[in-house]
């Protein structure tokens, strides 16, 4: 099992300056602490929607990498998005699922079938062409460059536990200024 912040630190090393990172809930809070950047897309709005926002961005901006930092509970609320992503087949979409088997933001209650559900297998069955799963940071660090060089869509399940606590700034996540800065950065106005 890996600490989520240790996994995300590995991703920080490979982030290009023009990559868009779509992050939700606990992964978003950790990412904001570890890698603040105006191209972090944090205004997901409704639980489960990170992968779909990312698909829109990936289709609209085919020359940029779009990296999603999703939660397992969040993905379960929008599981069909895996099939939609497989169908749309964006080559620039990289979907990381923080698999902690619980609704961490809502009291850490377990997922349904928390002892059995397999997110990598779900992604394979949905038709995602490149799927991987990690529970050791060293293995993740070794494979990340290859995974991020693949033609997407790619899904990576990260078996994690919480790491150091991050500030939970919901006002920043949902704030109008966050969206304004993202759009300005996207179009070169920052």
């Amino acid at each position, binding site marked *: 099992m890996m600490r989520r912040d240790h996994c995300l630190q590995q991703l920080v090393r490979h982030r290009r300056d023009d990559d868009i990172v779509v992050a939700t809930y606990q992964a978003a809070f950790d990412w904001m602490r570890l890698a603040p950047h105006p191209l972090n897309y944090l205004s997901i*709005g409704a639980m489960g*929607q990170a992968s779909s*926002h990312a698909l829109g*961005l990936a289709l*609209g901006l085919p020359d940029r990498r779009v990296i999603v930092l999703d939660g397992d509970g969040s993905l379960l609320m*929008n599981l*069909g*998005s895996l099939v939609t992503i497989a*169908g749309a087949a964006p080559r620039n979409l990289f979907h990381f699922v923080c698999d902690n088997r619980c609704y961490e933001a809502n009291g850490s209650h377990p997922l349904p079938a928390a002892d059995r559900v397999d997110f990598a297998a779900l992604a394979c069955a949905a038709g995602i062409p490149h799927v991987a799963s990690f529970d050791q940071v060293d293995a993740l660090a070794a494979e990340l460059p290859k995974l991020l060089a693949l033609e997407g869509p790619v899904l990576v399940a990260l078996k994690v536990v919480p790491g150091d606590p991050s500030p939970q700034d919901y006002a920043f996540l949902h704030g109008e200024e966050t*969206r304004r800065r993202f759009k300005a950065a996207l179009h070169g106005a920052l």
Partner: protein
Amino acid sequence: MTGGNSFAGPSGGAIIAALKQARVEFVAAVPDIVTSAGLLWPLSRDPAFRLVRLCKEDEGVSICAGLAFADRRAVLLMQQTGFLDSLNSIRAIAVEYAQPICMLIGLQGKEPDRLPTASERYGVRIIEPIMEAMGIDHMNIEGTADIAALIPAIDRAYAQSRPLAALIGRTVEQ
């Protein structure tokens, strides 16, 4: 209205032409029988559009939001049941985040001779009051004559960054 039938539905070709004139490039859709033959099938064959087939309508709200940030115009095509199922995403992303989510909504089960609020179908007549409660701009497309208003409505939605719903009340004609 077309021909001698005063309750003829809107022309699918005219809706497609209006979407092109409004610079729409993407269509995110869950099939709906009101718009299936006259609109969604022709859209699926038109190379001017990228069709994203969805599993569930709320995906489309977020996809359209992502596309809007990329300055690419899109519409979400669905049935009113999909609108109802997607209310939380529409509430958060379209309304509270003020994003230009443009929805084309087939009103399955609406009587052709009645406006939506006068429908005997509960699931139809509640749609406009819900939109009014949420502050969503909406318009009715009953016949071909109503389609011209769609172009400035989409332009306005993007210019003002706010959602729009066009309620298609009769089966779209091929």
